[in-house]
Structure formats: structure tokens, C-alpha cells
């Protein structure tokens, strides 16, 4: 097929002359061929019909003239009758048959007396009318009928079709010859016409080739017919094209300069450009620098165009009203200049925040609006993160300030309480009136409760000051559960925990934290509900709800979950503040969660809060650690000191009231006491035979620890008791024997001093 295609193309394509000649030749050949073929077919049919009629007529004539001979069974007469017919040039066979198809006479005398047995001949025994036995061979038969209507035989004539075929063949040959002559004449005529036509066309083509090569030439017109007009039109077209080419060249140069300028401008910009067609409701986007929306074609010169509906699908649903309002305003010619942020979806599925600016031409209110788009996704994220960080910083600063404030207040408060408690103790010892004794006991109890509150305030600020270690959290939880269960009437507690989970904490403090959380849950449920305490490992992702710092990685998380009414978002940000409570009328101190905050953070832990109606969960996250069995613990032995006994004791406190009160208590217990109101004064007394030193920690000219170190450096090896209203701030040191919190437990102090 390809070869035929190439051959046809070789003849057909490339030359009008060839096409014209081949077309006329083929057309004539086909039309005349069809005509001659049809003529031959008609001629054949007509000749056959004529021959058939002649055969039938001959048979009938012979039948008529054979009647008597058949009646007489006279074969000689019959032979004579058909002898004339057998001389007929196309008669292959002429015969007279009896009704039983016995040959009574035949052109071939040897056939006389034989019988016809073929099926076609047998039809004569069932038919009475003249007919064609076989039209293809022009085999006709006519019955021999007597005057009474009886069929007494048949005359059968078989004509040869050779004459017909010969005549038809002659007609066909003549027709073919005429076709060939017509085709030849047509080809010659086509060559003549094509030569005239293509000569002018080739001249035009030559001029066109030269023009294509850059020459400025024109066709020379010699004719006045259609080709002449074509030449004139061709020249006019060339003139017009030359003008347009020159104008186009100028415009193209200008356009290239403009585009180059634009491309440089776009390439140098970090933004990308857009244009909105209010009529077509389409947006076209060009991107030259980094970024873009990933639209196909956006980096091409033509840009990427999207319909308004298609574009809407790419805009964040929350921003769609703004975008639709912009589009409506732009279509009404009053929406520009516009500026704002939209969130749109990048082709890769990411959501981008873009800043859109746009403006139209003031002289075309309903014309296109062009503008820029800036990808501000990172900027807005950084801005959001910075704002969140700032908020967390403020929260942390607030908690830090609260802690410091609470620590300072508690310290001073403890000093006051220490004085009150000391004097109350002295007064109680000296009082003989029972009523006075009872009053002094009440003062002492109140001072102890106040000291408890101060301790909690201090715990909020700096923890409880106890060095954390490995604690089995599950055991602590179980302990708390045992403590609380008697008070949980109507409330079920479910524990979800492994056998053991070790975290870095301090056991008593952890019990306090869990108690505070569980008591809060119990109080919220008001005698009806469900508490789940869950202990599990945690990946450490997320932020602390109180200090807003990120967690420190994998740890152990203790969750206390209740199905109470939940905490509103407004309250969630304040629940860790000291003295903030929603249960003040029920005796809430507002210190439970703030104490938990202080303790947990003292162990480098954090707190998290999740709350919604029907579910509130407080999570205490603690750094994980290994079981103590795997930790080499070394008992730190206290320095061997001489056991104090009644002797000289140096009391150092920059608060005179506290120092004097303590000195009075110690003197009453048999000690000789000297009071120094600062580190400097105490050091100045060195050399005196002190058996023990009792010193405050935080003083105006130094700390009690500094004093202890100096005394140890100077060789003092007696007991040194460090007092502090804020134990959490006291670093561990071998220089002191014990750290006692204010207000002092006098019996405990005396215990230490006595041995």
C-alpha cells in the first residue's frame, strides 16, 4: 500500500499538469468504460433476446409444418421438414420429439430413434406451451398440436451463442478502441490546456520563490483572462505583504524590546503577575522568579489562564467570600485598587498564603485588572510563630514573675512566721494561765497553717527544693488512689498503667501533684462521675500548658481524666495562676495547680491540659529514667562533726526579730547564744569557741552557704544548720549539715543541735 501511495503521489502530486492530464484521462476512461461496458451488456441482452425469439419462432414454425408428418409418423417427411432449419447458421441442433421424448427427427440423423433423458428435456413432458428450455444456450421448444388440441410432439431448436458472443465481442472491441481514442484525445487536449495554464502558474510560482528568497520582484502580466487577473492580484498582494512586512518588522522590533524589558522586570521581581478579564471572567498568571502556583504555562510568555469557576476551586473556602467580593467589585469597575491575603492551593496540594494587589486603569473601569501576587506563606507563618512565641514568653515571664514574687513573699512571710512561732512557743512555755496557753496554742497552729500556705507558695515558685530522683510513678499513683478512695463516694477511679514506670521526680512531691489533680477532678465531678488515671510513655511532643515551653522529648505522662463539665477556654489560660480558683466558696485555695506547676517544673517536667465538655485531662509529663536498681547510688555521708551539746551557738540572721527570737529559744534550752546580723559580722566572730552555727540562707550581705564555706575553710567543723524560708533556692552543699525551712520546728532544731 505504501508503494502504491508513493507511486500515486509521484504521478499525482507535484504538478498541476500531471493532475489535469491524469484526471481527464481517468475520467474519460472511467465514464466511457462504463458506457461501453453497459452498451456491450445491453447489446448482449438484446441479441440474446432476439435470438431467443428467433429460436422460438423457428421451433413454432417447424412444429406447425411437422404436424402431418408426426401424425403420419413419417420420419422422412420430418427429416425433410427440418433439413432447411438445420442449415440455419446458428442452429446447433433441431429435432422433433415424440411426447415421450423419442427423437423422431434430428439434424444429426444418428440421433433419430434415441431418447432424451436429461432433466431439462424432461420438462417437456409437463409443459404444453412454447418456451425456452435453457436461455443460456437459447434452447427453445414448441409443441406440435393437432387441430383437436392434442400435443403429439415437440420441435426443439438449440441456437449457438457463438454468433451473439462474436457480435458482442466486436462491439466491445470497437468500444474499447473508441475509449482509447477518446482518452488519447483527452490527454492531448489536457496537455494543451495544462500547458497554457501551468506556464502562467509556473511563472507566478517562480516569482513567489524569488520573493521568498528576499527579492523584490513582480510578475509580468501578458494575459487578460483569469490568469492575467490572478497575476495582477498576485502583484497587488505582494505589494500589500511588503507593506505589512515592513510595518510588522517595526512592530515586532518594538514588541521584542518591550517584552525583553518586561521579562527583565518580571525576572527581577520576586512576585508574580496576574491579570483579570472581567468580561471573560478569566485570570491569567505569569511567573518568572521562584514560587508560583504550579499552573501549567505560568512560566511561559503567554502565562497560565484559568476560568473564574476553576479558580474558585483553588481558593481556601474561608477566603472564598473575600475573593468573590473582589471579583464582583472588579466586574463592576469599582473594586480596585485591591489588597489582601488569600489562601490558595498550589498544584502540588499545598496551601499557600498570598498577598494579592491589583489595580485597573482609571480610564477603563470595566477593563482588565492587573496586579501582583506575593507568596507570603513563610512570612505569615513566621509572623504567627513569632506571635505565639511572644505570647508564650509573656506567659512564661508572668509565671516566672509570679514565682519570684511568691518566693519573696513566702520568704518574708516565713521570717515573720518564724518570729511569731518562736515567741508563741516561748510564751507558751512561760504561760501558766490555761486560757493563755490555749490562746498561744491557737497562735502556733495558725502560724503553722500559714507556714503550710507559704510552703505551697514556695513550691509554686521553686518546687519543694528536694533533689529529684528515680520514682516509680505507678506506685505513686496507686498510693494516691488509696488515699483518695475513701473520699470518692459515687465516683469511680480507673487506673490504666503498666506495672512500673520510672521518671525523674521526688516521690512526696509527686504524690502531692497527683493528689492535687485528683482532688480537683473529684471536686469537679461533685460525687458523680468517672476518673481515669493513666500512666504511659509519651513522645514528648507539644507545649506546656502553664509555661508554654515545648516538652523535652520522650518521657512518662501521667494523665488524670474526668468526665466533668470541662473548663472553658478563657479559664484554661489562668488555672495555673496561684490563688486562682472557681471554688473559693467551697474552700478552694487556688494553689493546687500552681503547686503542681512548681513541683513538676522543678523536676524539668511540664503540664498539659485538654478540656471540652464531658472530658478534661491534665497531663503531667516527666523525664523518663531507669529503675533505681540500675543506678549506682552513693550515700553522701554528712561530715563528721562534734555532737553539739549545751554550749555556745552562733545565730546569724539579718532579720533581728528572727535572730533574737531564735536566740531566746536556744538560751531557754540551755545554749549560750550570740546573734550576728549578717555574714560579715558572723565571720568577724570567728575564733570564738562556737559549738554550732545556725544561719539564715538569704541575707543582705551574702548567703548562709557562703558563710558556711568560709567557716569550713577556716577550720570550723561543728554543725552548721542552714535556715531558709525558700528551700527551693538552696543549692546542695557539703558545707552545711542540714537545711531547715522556716518557720523552724524548734524541736527539730534542738534535735540537730543536741545530737
Amino acid at each position, binding site marked *: 500500500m505504501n508503494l502504491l501511495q508513493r507511486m500515486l503521489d509521484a504521478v499525482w502530486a507535484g504538478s498541476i499538469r500531471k493532475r489535469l492530464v491524469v484526471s481527464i484521462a481517468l475520467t474519460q476512461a472511467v465514464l466511457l468504460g462504463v458506457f461501453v461496458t453497459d452498451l456491450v451488456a445491453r447489446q448482449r441482452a438484446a441479441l440474446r433476446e432476439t435470438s431467443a425469439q428467433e429460436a422460438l419462432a423457428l421451433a413454432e414454425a417447424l412444429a406447425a409444418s411437422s*404436424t402431418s408428418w408426426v401424425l403420419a409418423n413419417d420420419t422422412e417427411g420430418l427429416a425433410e421438414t427440418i433439413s432447411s432449419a438445420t442449415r440455419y447458421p446458428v442452429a446447433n441442433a433441431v429435432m422433433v420429439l415424440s411426447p415421450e421424448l423419442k427423437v423422431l427427427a434430428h439434424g444429426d440423423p444418428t440421433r433419430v430413434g434415441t431418447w432424451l433423458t436429461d432433466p431439462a428435456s424432461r420438462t417437456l413432458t409437463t409443459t404444453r406451451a412454447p418456451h425456452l428450455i435453457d436461455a443460456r444456450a437459447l434452447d427453445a421448444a414448441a409443441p406440435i398440436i393437432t387441430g383437436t388440441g392434442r400435443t403429439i410432439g415437440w420441435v426443439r431448436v438449440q441456437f449457438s451463442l457463438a454468433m451473439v458472443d462474436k457480435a458482442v465481442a466486436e462491439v466491445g472491441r470497437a468500444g474499447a478502441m473508441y475509449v482509447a481514442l477518446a482518452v488519447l484525445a483527452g490527454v492531448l487536449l489536457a496537455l494543451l490546456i495544462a500547458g497554457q495554464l501551468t506556464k502562467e502558474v509556473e511563472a507566478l510560482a517562480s516569482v513567489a520563490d524569488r520573493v521568498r528568497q528576499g527579492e523584490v520582484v513582480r510578475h509580468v502580466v501578458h494575459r487578460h483572462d483569469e490568469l492575467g487577473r490572478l497575476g495582477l492580484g498576485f502583484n497587488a498582494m505582494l505589494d500589500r505583504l511588503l507593506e505589512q512586512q515592513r510595518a510588522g518588522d517595526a512592530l515586532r522590533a518594538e514588541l521584542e524590546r518591550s517584552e525583553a524589558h518586561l521579562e527583565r522586570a518580571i525576572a527581577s521581581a520576586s512576585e508574580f503577575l496576574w491579570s483579570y478579564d472581567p468580561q471573560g471572567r478569566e485570570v491569567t498568571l505569569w511567573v518568572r522568579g521562584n514560587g508560583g502556583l504550579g499552573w501549567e504555562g505560568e512560566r511561559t510568555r503567554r502565562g497560565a489562564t484559568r476560568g473564574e469557576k476553576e479558580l474558585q476551586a483553588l481558593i481556601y473556602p474561608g477566603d472564598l467570600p473575600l475573593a468573590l467580593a473582589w471579583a464582583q467589585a472588579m466586574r463592576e469597575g469599582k473594586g480596585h485598587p485591591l489588597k489582601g491575603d488569600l489562601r490558595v492551593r498550589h498544584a502540588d496540594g499545598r496551601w499557600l498564603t498570598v498577598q494579592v494587589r491589583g489595580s485597573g486603569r482609571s480610564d477603563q473601569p470595566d477593563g482588565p485588572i492587573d496586579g501582583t501576587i506575593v507568596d507570603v506563606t513563610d512570612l505569615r507563618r513566621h509572623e504567627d510563630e513569632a506571635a505565639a512565641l511572644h505570647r508564650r514568653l509573656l506567659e512564661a515571664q508572668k509565671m516566672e514573675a509570679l514565682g519570684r514574687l511568691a518566693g519573696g513573699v513566702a520568704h518574708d512571710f516565713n521570717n515573720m512566721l518564724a518570729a511569731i512561732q518562736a515567741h508563741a512557743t516561748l510564751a507558751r512555755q512561760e504561760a501558766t494561765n490555761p486560757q493563755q496557753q490555749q490562746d498561744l496554742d491557737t497562735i502556733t497552729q495558725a502560724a503553722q497553717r500559714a507556714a503550710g500556705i507559704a510552703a505551697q507558695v514556695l513550691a509554686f515558685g521553686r518546687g519543694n527544693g528536694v533533689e529529684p530522683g528515680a520514682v516509680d510513678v505507678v506506685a505513686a499513683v496507686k498510693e494516691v488512689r488509696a488515699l483518695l478512695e475513701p473520699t470518692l463516694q459515687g465516683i469511680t477511679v480507673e487506673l490504666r498503667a503498666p506495672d512500673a514506670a520510672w521518671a525523674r521526680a521526688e516521690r512526696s512531691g509527686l504524690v502531692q501533684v497527683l493528689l492535687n489533680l485528683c482532688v480537683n477532678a473529684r471536686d469537679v465531678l461533685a460525687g458523680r462521675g468517672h476518673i481515669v488515671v493513666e500512666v504511659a510513655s509519651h513522645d514528648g511532643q507539644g507545649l506546656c500548658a502553664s509555661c508554654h515551653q515545648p516538652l523535652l522529648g520522650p518521657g512518662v505522662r501521667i494523665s488524670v481524666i474526668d468526665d466533668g463539665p470541662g473548663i472553658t477556654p478563657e479559664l484554661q489560660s489562668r488555672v495555673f495562676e496561684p490563688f486562682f480558683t472557681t471554688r473559693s466558696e467551697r474552700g478552694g485555695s487556688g494553689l493546687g495547680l500552681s503547686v503542681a506547676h512548681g513541683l513538676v517544673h522543678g523536676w524539668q517536667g511540664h503540664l498539659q491540659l485538654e478540656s471540652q465538655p464531658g472530658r478534661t485531662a491534665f497531663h503531667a509529663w516527666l523525664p523518663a529514667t531507669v529503675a533505681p536498681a540500675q543506678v549506682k547510688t552513693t550515700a553522701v555521708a554528712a561530715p563528721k562533726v562534734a555532737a553539739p551539746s549545751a554550749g555556745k551557738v552562733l545565730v546569724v540572721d539579718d532579720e533581728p526579730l528572727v535572730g533574737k527570737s531564735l536566740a531566746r529559744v536556744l538560751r531557754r534550752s540551755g545554749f549560750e547564744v550570740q546573734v550576728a546580723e549578717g555574714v560579715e559580722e558572723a565571720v568577724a566572730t570567728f575564733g570564738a569557741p562556737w559549738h554550732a552555727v545556725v544561719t539564715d540562707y538569704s541575707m543582705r550581705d551574702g548567703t548562709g552557704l557562703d558563710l558556711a564555706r568560709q567557716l569550713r575553710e577556716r577550720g570550723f567543723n561543728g554543725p552548721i544548720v542552714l535556715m531558709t524560708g525558700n528551700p527551693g533556692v538552696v543549692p546542695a552543699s557539703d558545707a552545711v549539715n542540714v537545711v531547715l525551712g522556716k518557720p523552724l520546728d524548734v524541736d527539730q532544731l534542738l534535735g540537730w543541735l543536741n545530737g
Partner: protein
Amino acid sequence: MSRPLILSLLISSLFACNNSGEQPVSTTYSTVRPEGTVVPLVLAVHPLYNPRRLEAVYGPLISQLSAATGRPFRLEASRSYAAFEEKLAHREFEFALPNPYQTLRAREHGYTVFAKEADDSRFRGLFLARKGDGPATLDDVRGKKVAFPASTALAAAMLPQLFLARAGLKVGRDYEPVYVGSQESSIMSVATGDVALGVTWPPPWEALTAERPELASQLEVRWQTAALVNNSVMARDDVDPALVALVRDTLLAFSPDLQGPERRFVAADDATYEPVMVFLEAYTQEVGPPP
């Protein structure tokens, strides 16, 4: 449609109309009669008339015989008395209707009379002459030409020749006999003036009178002979006697009113034709040896 495909169709159309290759049905000849082909029985009638008329006269009888016997019958004519007699001598027919003279000769070839045509009075010779012309007396016949169908035609030749001999006119001596081959030819010979007299017998003359009255009106019966025994119906001796009896019954019951021209038959046998023997003896003595 692609350009090559169009061109291919155009070119192929030039050769698409050739209509050749028809093969005719061949004709098969066999020397053996095909099985199941029933050959009709033949009733041959001597040339009373030309074959067409003979068929017109006896065709209804043939149809009746076929219907009655259940076997096809075919009427066979003959081109001449001689041809008839030759075929009779060769026993080519199962049944024959000869004239009385041929009846006697057929007996020699194995044929037997079983019936005959009725009305013997119609078996006589008629001398036809043109009205107002021809011999007025028998003596006027002398020297004239007289047309006869055939020399063996008993009613139309032998009876008239004996009739003329007894009038003193010897055949060949006193008049010139012209044997024209058939009854119609004899009549036409006198009508055209070729002969002075044309001899025939009643059936052909009656037929002419009925069919061509303008011709018959120009002629007249000038003399007629005495009657003899009418034509016989004979069967070949190898035909089943039962079939012969059935044919005879059919002939005797044949109704001429319904079936065609008057042809009635009566039973007969060979003895019925003894008068013919007498006639032949007289003929031999007075005219000469029978032809």
C-alpha cells in the same frame, strides 16, 4: 476516503461488467428407452383424409380409447396408401383401420377384424364433375382424364373402375387414370379443371361441402357406384385379447354426437368381408389384377 482507494475503484470499474462464463445445460441422448416411459398404442388409419383432417376426425376417438383403457393411444396417419400398407405389412401398429381391400391383405400379416364402421351405404364411389362441364354421359368419359386418390383406394378407385368397366370403359384404354395420392387431391383436380372427373367417396365430399361450400358449389356428383362393406377395425394378433375386447367395447359405445363427426362402429369379423372377396374376383375379371 483516500485518494488511492478512489482511483482503484475507478480503474476496477472498467473491468467489472464482463458477463461471461455461462455454461448451457447439455442434452443427453440415450439409445435405451428411459425407465418408466410409457409407449402409446397406435391406431393407424388408412389415408382417408390428409393427416390433419384424419386427426380431426379420429382424434376424439383416440382420446376416448385412452380414457377407457387407461393406456395412451396415438393416431397414426400415413403419407399414402402405399406407405400405410407398407407399415401394415411390417406390423407397426397394434390397431389398424384399413379399407376393405386392405383388410383382406392385412389378414395375411396377422391382423384380425373385430369391428367395422357402420353404415355400409356410405362406402361407395362418387364421380365429381364441374357443374355444367365435363362428361354428361359415361360415354363422354372416353378419352378423358379421371383423377383417383390411389389405385388401391377401394371406394374411390377400384369400385369406380369396375363401374366404368361394366359401362365399357377400360382403364388406361378408354380413359386416363390419374392417381393424385389423396381424396382431397382428387377433388381439387377436378375443381381446377385438370381432369374431367374426380373420384372420391362420401366422407371427403361431405367434409368439403361443409368446410368449403363455395368450392363444393362448383362441383356436383355426376355418378356414384354401388356400396360395399365399410372400413374395418383390426387388431394385431399379439395384442392382449382383453385389451382388444375393451377397445371393441369402447368403439361400439362411442358416441359420435358428443365426440365429433359421425363415426359409429359395429362388431365384425373376418367373415364380414367375404363380399369384398367376391368384388375382387369380379374386379380381376373385368378390370384386371388388383393393384
